């Protein structure tokens, strides 16, 4: 009996040695897992997008998809769907080709990302919230909301050493994002009269 217990212990020990490092760590401290499925309400939006992306040149984003699906959707819904897209690039070739960012940001957030990244490339200060608000025809508070969402998606980060806007791009890849197949901060919205609007690449 004692010998059997020892054999069992040895087997468990050997099995833990054979596990990949990530899986071995999971035995001791369970990591916070990304959701494997969305609630029905958010899944409806995702289904709409995946169907849209199967049409030529289409890349309708979460914001417009929520609008087209109808019903009550919040910024939290957009964030949840956005994170799901980020964590599941195998969902659609569009995600792997153009990146999740372009599908989850609003036109205003893309505008801010485009202008701030260019300012950083040119070593120039970015426009102020008031200047963004004027160009985008929104309130400064709406610009602040857009910056907060860009921060939540880890695309921009606060930098209190920067006068004015107080935000910079979070990673170099968001500063130097332009190039073949990179449309991260680009937006082209089309509406044919009598039909729902869509976005193209």
């Amino acid at each position, binding site marked *: 009996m004692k010998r059997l217990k020892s054999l069992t212990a040895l087997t468990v020990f050997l099995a833990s040695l054979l596990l990949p490092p990530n899986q071995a760590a999971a035995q001791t401290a369970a990591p916070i897992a990304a959701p494997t499925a969305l609630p029905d309400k958010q899944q409806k939006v995702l289904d709409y997008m995946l169907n849209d992306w199967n049409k030529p040149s289409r890349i309708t984003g979460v914001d417009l998809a929520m609008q087209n699906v109808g019903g009550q959707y919040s910024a939290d819904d957009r964030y949840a769907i956005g994170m799901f897209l980020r964590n599941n690039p195998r969902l659609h070739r569009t995600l792997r080709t153009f990146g999740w960012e372009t599908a989850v940001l609003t036109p205003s957030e893309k505008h801010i990302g485009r*202008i701030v990244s260019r300012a950083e490339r040119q070593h120039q200060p970015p426009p102020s919230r008031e200047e963004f608000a004027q160009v*985008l025809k929104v309130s400064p508070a709406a610009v602040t909301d857009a910056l907060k969402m860009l921060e939540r998606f880890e695309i921009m980060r606060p930098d209190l050493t920067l006068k004015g806007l107080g935000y910079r791009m979070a990673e170099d890849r968001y500063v130097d994002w332009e190039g073949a197949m990179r449309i991260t901060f680009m*937006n082209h919205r089309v509406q*044919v009269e009598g039909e729902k609007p869509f976005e193209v690449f």
Partner: protein
Amino acid sequence: MLLVSSELKDNVVTIDDSSQYNGAPIHLVFENSRVKELDPATTRVFLGGG
């Protein structure tokens, strides 16, 4: 623009885009492939599709 001058040439089509020069929003309305509205008015439009 290819869509406007080909597949959607018989439609009223609204496009919201942005300037390649300074990133400012551009709003365009086409009717039968012709520009009907343009904001800002200084926007230059190059229609593709031959």
